[in-house]
């Protein structure tokens, strides 16, 4: 599919050019304004579209366009219920605290979330605890998003000749550099390109550039999703047809087997990952590359996928070219839930390869309906956006815009990738490729391969819009909350400008260095960081804004209470399952227990601790 890859490269180049252009314009717009306020908060001047789209784009990270489609593909219609909590995300995450948070931040002249808490209680200790926890959790998040950026780009450019040349050059140039040489060269190239692009435009344009690029990225995502929905429905023959065929499907079986050839080869023979092999006892797809050494007839054991749905088997047999290859099955692992059952893709809890309760047990469904809206409300990167709007009218109209935006995006994604499950079998071997591969398939089949570039730009835009925001949140925590508030309150603007740029670059560089060899449990770390941030900040912030009796001590207790509950359940889960996953007490997501822990710690401290300062109550209430 070379034409598609060329398109992806051209799209990426054009896209990056526009991003830099916006950064230059943002830099010009910032001229003459107080630096720190402009760099970290855009001088609190954003209107409806800027606030709405930066909020929407920051929330819709790479997970929405890579992980979510992969899950829909793997588990079917149950993902509609899984994501259902998003129906109230805009109202809850923006309306619950937006107006009051913005007002209190203005009263404290606060530019960051820790600074709001610090100013609300006139307490350095509160600010320092908040800053420390924010940096701790946020850094994990930043790592994950940088990794996602590198991965998505390498997926998009995989077949581009120019890219492959760059990969071989970088691969040979770095083969003797410790730590760096452990990364795959293609991932390394993409990570470097992605990181340099993001860091440069964030440093040059600051928060204003981040918001303006978010607006563009938000539009790209919307256009991409709508186009893909139309193409998918057209090619599958309507949604009814897709759902009926989905209802007849049974989950495939993962396994291990060896690839045999009927004739010994004189030279080594590689059989690519994704190769289809049809034989009398079934249709198989290789989940990893198999190599048959010279003079042998059999490969080492490799991972395979066996298709079990009758109609798919018939279709695939007619399409697969006859070959001399055969699969000798060593082991097959049916799904823990849903194996051999028709209808599992169109009902809850959905099929699952490893969980005997299915993908979405009822307790999990409850948990996610709580987690999405309240988890979003507790994210500091969202709270920062609530500090930046210029008036309450902007907030109200942004809630309207984001509500409609999310409705379109998420419902369209569900329908599109249920169609993908029908149109494109065997993606279980690499579910994260579902989105780019499906974009390629529907555009090529429709005779418009150039359109693939627009579609695959959507996940890239999503990751970029999240990375830039998180980068700025971490930088602001260091420059504003630690240096300016605790070390040198009289620092000159020139020094703050230099420091802000240096910190943004250093934080970005450190993140890149870490994700050259990402830890095994990185995906779990994302979940850990997301839940941890919301558990740490939501309850203390809500009580600080609305409860007169709230004190600085109680805010610290709430932050630590949420964090410790989160850490405790994570450690318990690790001890219980031997995996980096929190323990789900009573089958509920740990986030619910974290919130309870945080609330209990805050309220108890208020009730038994010193009374709130009258001057603070008078100032803020």
């Amino acid at each position, binding site marked *: 599919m070379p034409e598609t890859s060329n398109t992806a490269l051209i799209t990426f180049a054009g896209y990056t050019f526009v991003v830099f252009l916006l950064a230059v314009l943002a830099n010009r717009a910032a001229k003459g304004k107080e630096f720190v306020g402009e760099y970290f908060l855009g001088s609190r001047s954003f209107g409806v579209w800027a606030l709405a789209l930066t909020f929407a784009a920051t929330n819709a990270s790479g997970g929405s366009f890579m992980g979510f489609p992969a899950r829909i593909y793997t588990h079917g*219609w149950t993902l*509609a*219920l899984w994501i*259902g909590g998003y*129906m*109230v995300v805009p*109202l*809850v995450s923006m*309306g*619950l*605290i937006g*107006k*009051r948070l913005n*007002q209190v931040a*203005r*009263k404290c*002249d606060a530019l960051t979330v820790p600074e709001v808490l610090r*100013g609300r209680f*006139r307490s*350095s200790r509160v600010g320092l605890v908040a800053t420390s926890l924010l940096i701790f959790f946020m850094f994990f998040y930043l790592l994950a998003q940088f990794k996602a950026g590198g991965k998505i780009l390498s997926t998009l450019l995989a077949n581009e000749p120019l890219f492959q040349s760059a990969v071989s050059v970088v691969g040979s140039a770095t083969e003797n550099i410790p730590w760096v040489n452990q990364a795959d060269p293609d991932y390394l190239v993409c990570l470097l390109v992605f990181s340099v692009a993001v860091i440069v435009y964030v440093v040059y344009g600051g928060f204003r550039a981040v918001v303006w690029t978010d607006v563009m990225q938000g539009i790209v995502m919307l256009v991409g999703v709508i186009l893909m929905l139309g193409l998918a429905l057209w090619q599958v023959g309507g*949604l*009814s*047809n*897709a*759902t*009926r065929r989905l*209802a007849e499907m049974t989950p495939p079986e993962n396994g291990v087997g060896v690839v045999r050839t009927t004739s010994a080869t004189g030279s080594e023979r590689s059989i690519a990952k994704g190769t289809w092999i049809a034989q009398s006892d079934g249709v198989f797809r290789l989940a990893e590359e198999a190599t048959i050494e010279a003079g042998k007839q059999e490969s080492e054991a490799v991972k395979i996928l066996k298709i079990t749905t009758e109609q798919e088997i018939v279709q695939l047999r007619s399409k697969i070219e006859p070959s001399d290859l055969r699969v000798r099955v060593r082991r097959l692992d049916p799904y823990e839930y849903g194996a051999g059952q028709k*209808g599992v893709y*169109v*009902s*809850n*809890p959905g099929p699952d390869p490893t969980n005997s309760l299915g993908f979405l047990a*009822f307790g999990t*469904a409850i948990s996610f*309906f*709580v987690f999405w*809206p309240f988890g979003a409300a507790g994210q500091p990167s969202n709270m920062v956006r609530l500090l930046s709007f210029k*008036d*309450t*009218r902007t907030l*109200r*109209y942004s*809630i*309207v815009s984001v*509500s*409609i935006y999310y*409705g379109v995006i998420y419902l369209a994604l569900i*329908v599109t990738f249920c169609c993908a499950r029908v149109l494109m079998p065997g993606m279980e071997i690499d579910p994260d490729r579902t989105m780019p591969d499906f974009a390629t398939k529907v555009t090529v089949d429709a005779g418009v391969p150039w359109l693939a570039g627009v579609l695959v730009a959507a996940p890239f835009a999503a990751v970029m819009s999240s990375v830039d925001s998180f980068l700025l949140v971490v930088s602001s925590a260091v420059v504003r909350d630690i240096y*300016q*508030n605790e070390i040198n*309150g*009289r*620092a000159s603007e020139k020094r703050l400008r230099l420091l802000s740029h240096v910190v943004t670059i250093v934080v970005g560089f450190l993140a890149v260095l870490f994700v050259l060899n990402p830890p095994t449990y990185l995906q779990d770390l994302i979940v850990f960081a997301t839940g941890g941030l919301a558990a740490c900040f939501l309850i203390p912030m809500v009580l600080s804004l*609305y409860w007169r009796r709230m004190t600085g001590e109680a805010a610290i207790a709430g932050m630590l209470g949420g964090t410790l509950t989160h850490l405790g359940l994570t450690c318990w889960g690790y001890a219980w399952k031997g995996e980096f996953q929190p323990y789900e007490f009573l089958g509920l997501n740990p986030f619910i227990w974290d919130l309870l822990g945080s609330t209990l710690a805050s309220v108890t401290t208020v009730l038994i601790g010193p009374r709130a300062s*009258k*001057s603070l109550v*008078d*100032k*803020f*209430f």
Partner: protein
Amino acid sequence: MSESSDSSSDAIHSSSLREFWWILLIWGACFAWTIGYCRVFGYELDEPIALTFGMPSWAFWGVFVPWGIATIVSCWFALTQMQDHPLDSDATAPANGKDSIGQPSVAPTSKGQDLNEVRSEIGDA
């Protein structure tokens, strides 16, 4: 939407708090509808799946319909029920130049000055 020219902390706090409880109520209603409906009609279906507008009926009535209604309610709430207020802290300062505890209200000339005042207050405490 009602517009209030009252920019005092108390007015914004009161209206924000009222909106806070309404938002929680709307979330609760969506939760009850979606989780309740899907639990009864969407789990472990034995019979042939019923379709509505091409999707499983439980997904249409349990997720898509409440999602549509939640979007409409969110828009209605934001446009008509949330109050507008001036947010600028300057606007909240009383006209007589005194702050709410009777001290002369002094606008800080720079961030550093403001922070040093805060620091000295912390030190005093």
